[in-house]
């Protein structure tokens, strides 16, 4: 406390403290009353924290440089529940950002009619984006009650990454330098054994703590169904589900994949060569390129009856705002259109463009390894359609909890399946909150 020699009563008095506190409160409140004018503001929330997030930053920098008339701000939030809870809360309060990313598999579970604003088709086509620019099966999932609630940006399937050096030494590459086609369970295991002998550690890196995508891929290749025709009753085929789980257990028991590995370890093992293959979504391309790795990518091998791979699509949505202005909607639609037209740069980060003029462009087809797995887009299996499914939603958490024990050896495939079925049944018995 500084002294005030001139003052008869040094130090704070009650009145001075009160006056000071009042003044401070007023000063804090003042900036809140600023006038809102100037360029249209577009705030974007996304969940890209991986290699694709770094790519998005570059694209956004270019957008900001080109479109000086739009005040653009982007925020990256933690993937999964932290992102979706914040987005839902902001939309429930009507104070959401102008635009946000959303997984297509979660669109119906996100209560679009209350938490999202429809995207005006006329403004979108004025900005040069039409329904014919997308694969029909993708576009149709964005429509709810004939209103457009999401614009697809990409598709992101579960794929196979391979380290070209390791695979060449293991004799797995064809003359074109790409991995030879693997078909069937035996071929998969033979290939993985050859890789394991070369690395001396593991064949493939997988995320054992969240094995939903691997299981859903294998189960989908067995043409297993999740719901019956009514779409509300669980119709899992035990034999097929167990076949997939037993294969996962065998890979871990034979030491072809680690018994326990979170996502960060999946990336680390493939980067440092402990594993010559990696089963993962295609979004880590930038990470491995930055690490100066020699690697290739292919659609996930057809192990069973039909080609299929778990996957999802990123879309742009307009979360609900109280009083969205026409100017801000226009700027938002222009942002979405700009992003789609520049999605070849997004594709460099691994995702397959949803906007067909880009997906069929020479520029995209020349990308390697990104264009090597583009066929997977035709075999993408979205999560079962329910309010509790989708990327990072409850169904995947339950699958992760039940199935990770198959890798670690803490539970048998049968136990894991029973636990998972009980959990899904409980979710089905819960009245839908959306």
């Amino acid at each position, binding site marked *: 406390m500084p002294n005030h020699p001139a003052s008869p009563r040094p130090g704070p008095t009650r009145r001075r403290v009160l006056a000071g506190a009042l003044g401070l409160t007023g000063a804090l409140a003042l900036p809140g009353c600023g006038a809102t004018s100037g360029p249209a503001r577009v705030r974007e929330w996304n969940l890209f924290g991986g290699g694709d997030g770094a790519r998005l930053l570059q694209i956004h920098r270019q957008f900001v440089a080109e479109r000086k008339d739009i005040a653009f701000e982007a925020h990256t939030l933690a993937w999964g529940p932290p992102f979706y809870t914040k987005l839902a809360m902001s939309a429930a309060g009507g104070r959401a950002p102008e635009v946000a990313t959303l997984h297509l598999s979660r669109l119906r579970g996100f209560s679009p009619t209350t938490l999202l604003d429809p995207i005006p088709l006329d403004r979108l086509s004025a900005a040069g984006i039409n329904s014919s620019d997308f694969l029909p099966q993708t576009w149709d999932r964005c429509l709810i009650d004939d209103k457009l609630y999401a614009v697809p940006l990409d598709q992101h399937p579960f794929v196979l990454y391979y380290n070209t050096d390791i695979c060449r030494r293991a004799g797995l590459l064809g003359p074109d330098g790409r991995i030879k086609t693997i078909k069937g369970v035996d071929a998969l295991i033979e290939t993985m054994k050859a890789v394991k002998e070369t690395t001396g550690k593991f064949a493939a890196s997988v995320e054992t703590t969240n094995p939903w995508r691997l299981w859903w891929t294998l189960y989908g290749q067995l043409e297993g169904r999740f719901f019956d025709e009514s779409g509300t009753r669980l119709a899992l085929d035990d034999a097929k589900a167990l076949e997939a789980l037993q294969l996962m257990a065998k890979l871990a028991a034979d030491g072809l994949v680690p018994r326990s590995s979170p996502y960060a370890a999946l990336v680390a093992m493939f980067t440092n060569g402990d594993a010559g293959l990696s089963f993962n979504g295609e979004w880590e391309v930038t990470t491995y390129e930055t690490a100066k790795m020699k690697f290739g990518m292919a659609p996930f091998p057809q192990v069973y009856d039909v080609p299929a791979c778990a996957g999802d699509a990123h879309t742009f949505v307009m979360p609900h705002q109280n009083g969205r202005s026409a100017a801000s909607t226009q700027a938002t639609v222009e942002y979405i259109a700009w992003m789609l037209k520049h999605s070849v740069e997004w594709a460099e980060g691994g995702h397959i463009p949803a906007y067909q003029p880009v997906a069929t462009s020479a520029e995209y087809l020349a990308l390697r390894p990104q264009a090597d797995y583009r066929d997977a887009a035709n075999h993408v299996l979205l999560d079962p359609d329910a309010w509790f499914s989708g990327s990072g939603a409850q169904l995947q958490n339950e699958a992760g*909890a039940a199935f990770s024990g198959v890798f670690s050896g803490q539970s048998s495939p049968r136990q894991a399946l029973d636990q998972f079925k009980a959990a899904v049944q409980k979710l089905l018995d819960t009245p839908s909150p*959306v």
Partner: protein
Amino acid sequence: MAVQTSPRTPTGSSSTSTASPRTPTGQPWTEKWGGLLFVAPFLVLFGFFLLWPTLSGLWNSFFNKSLAGVGGEFLGLANWREVFHDPAVWSSLKNTLVFTAMSTPPLVLTALVMALLANRTGVFGWFLRFAYFAPFVLPATVVTLIWVWIYQPGFGLVNGLLTSAGFAEIDWLNTENRAMLAVVITTVWWTVGFNFLLYLAALQGIPEHLYEAAAIDGAGDRQKLFRITLPLLSRTTGLIVVLQLVASLKIFDQIYLMTVGGPNFSTRPIIQYIYESGFTSYRIGYASAISYLFFVVIVIVSIAQFKLFSGRKEDLR
């Protein structure tokens, strides 16, 4: 807790119950309403941010209210019935109680030992005080980031020590009956500094002359510790145990950041289940009902604590 709002006038407080109630006419208004005015800012905030949300939570627990803004029908006791039949509620409540039982004793005892040590040492006292308290100022994110790496198999510090001592590696955070222990160790390291500080302050408040008198009577170090120091710390211990129990029951941050409740939900605390029900699954009504169950548990624990420790009221001084 009742808030005293009526101002006491000198005349009013001295009047007996037999006398007719004095009309407060003639009092200046500042005396009559001044007290209320002074607590008004607090009362407004208290009402807005504690009382109202608490009551609206209770109200919501009888509806199928959804964060998505649909539903909202009256359900009667359906949410409450579901709470009592939902195994996830009870397993996550059990995890919270297990964490509390595992973390409270070491957090109290370690703090006491550290305070006794830091209070004895003259030269390095400042260093010990600093070192013991330093982790407490770190945010949860930093603490968990450090410890997730420490527990990492393959290259983590703990497993490095284990393997160099000839033991097998333990995948701490991904093994069902190890993950909770790992979180407890992290929590003790992180938050023991606060209890340590309370103990240290209490130790420094024990008058030196008691020890001098004891020394003259021929008391040794052990007798001084058990006959003077520990009895005089008993009220601080009571306070620390209550604060610690409440803090441990509220466990969420470390577990969510380190294991997300895994593996196989073996560390999921009840607050995480409330969060998942309310915000991931949008079921605000149901989440409110679980919250109230948990609220009752905390109130019971606090009352039991209060009864236990308010029994020893005798002041040893």
